[in-house]
Structures are given as C-alpha cells and as structure tokens.
C-alpha cells in the first residue's frame, strides 16, 4: 500500500475508532451505572452506528465521495435527534435526563460529537487534498483494520442485544428503569 493511499485509510480507521469510543462510553454508563437509554438516546446511538458504517465503507469497500456523504447525512440525523432532546430539557430548572459527563448531558455530547464528525470529514478531505492522496477502490484489510472492524461490529451487536432486552419487540418506555425481558 502506498503512503498516499494509507493516509485516507488511516484517517477513516481513526474515525471509526472514535465512533466506537462514543458507543463504548455510552455502553459503559449503561452497564456500570445502570442507566438505561431512553428511545431518543437509542436513536442517537443508531445514528452513530450509521456514521461508523460510512467510515467502515471507506475502509473496506474503498474510498468514495458517496461514503463521505453517508457520514455527513448520518451526522445530520444524529445531530437533529440530539437537538430535539436538548430542546426538551432546555428550560431553566429542568434537571435534564440521566447523569452528566464533564458537566454536560450525553445528548449534548451527542450534538457536539455529530458536529465534530462533520468537521472531521472536512479535515480529512482537506488533508487528502494537501497530501495528494487519491481515493482507493481496494479494501484496507490489515490487522488494524480487521481489529477496528471487529470492535465496531461487537458494539453494534451489543447494542442490538441490550435494546432487545430493554424494549423487547415494542417501543421503549420514555424513562426506562428496567430491562423489559429481564423482569
């Protein structure tokens, strides 16, 4: 693999790892603190999974402009859902939903992260232009790529499992306190 090609692959792998980190932090708070995600929280996680898939497509199916477009579309969806939840708890005196991380609620972090992803994609495109890296049609199948892929798939699978346990085959409670299927 040429150095020019690996720039794009490395940046997309870094992006996928970032998304995996976001999903891991959310999952840690769910398991360690017993905070069950609300429906809008779950949809923000689904949005991050869709963003991660864009990075994954670039990594495994070759870099394409449409893959970057998918990342941007999924970021808009995630950001819009987060804005909705921020707006619900914006009024003075509202304690918000769930615990906070570094002084901000998770839906506020989700909004910041969604905006951050858009900025990151802009940065990736600029770096690729500056370094002269070309879009690649071939998959990046190294050990690091496989490991990043496996971590992301594991997190999506764990979210699927926990959502089934929490909500069953229906819609979740607005303020869930117990796993529906573990009662």
């Amino acid at each position, binding site marked *: 693999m040429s150095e020019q090609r690996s720039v794009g692959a490395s940046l997309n792998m870094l992006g996928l790892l970032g998304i995996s980190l976001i999903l891991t932090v959310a999952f840690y708070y769910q398991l360690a603190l017993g905070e069950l995600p609300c429906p809008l929280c779950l949809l923000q996680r689904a949005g991050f999974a869709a963003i991660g898939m864009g990075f994954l497509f670039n990594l495994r199916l070759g870099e394409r402009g449409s893959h970057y477009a998918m990342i941007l579309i999924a970021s808009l969806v995630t950001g819009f859902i987060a804005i*909705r939840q921020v707006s619900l708890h914006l009024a003075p005196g509202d304690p918000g939903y769930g615990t906070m991380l570094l002084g901000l609620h998770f839906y506020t972090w989700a909004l910041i992260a969604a905006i951050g992803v858009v900025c990151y994609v802009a940065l990736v495109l600029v770096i690729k232009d500056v370094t002269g890296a070309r879009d690649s049609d071939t998959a990046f199948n190294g050990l690091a790529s496989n490991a990043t892929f496996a971590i992301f798939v594991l997190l999506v699978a764990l979210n*699927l499992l926990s959502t089934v346990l929490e909500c069953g085959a229906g819609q979740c409670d607005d303020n869930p306190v117990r796993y529906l299927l573990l009662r």
Partner: protein
Amino acid sequence: MYMFLPFLLALAACGCVWRSRAGLSYALWSATTVVTVAWFFHHATDPLKFSF
C-alpha cells in the same frame, strides 16, 4: 414498532461489508437511516414551546 430494528439493520450491513457485498451494504445503510428517522418522528411527539 421494533426499537432494535436500526441496530439489526446496521449489523446486517456490517455482515455485508465483511462479504464485500457493496450494493446490499448501501441498501441496508439506507434502511438503517430511514428507520432511525421514522422512529424519531414516532417518538418526537411532545410540543416544543419555542418561538423564533
């Protein structure tokens, strides 16, 4: 309404990526996004009292 559906579709898309089935991966990504948006509109029912 299956709350787990977006994650199931995302996982299926990842499986298609593993098998290098690009077209099916894109279709499943689209389905994930559409279902996520649809579920969002289903849940976003409380009115927001903002004026712009």
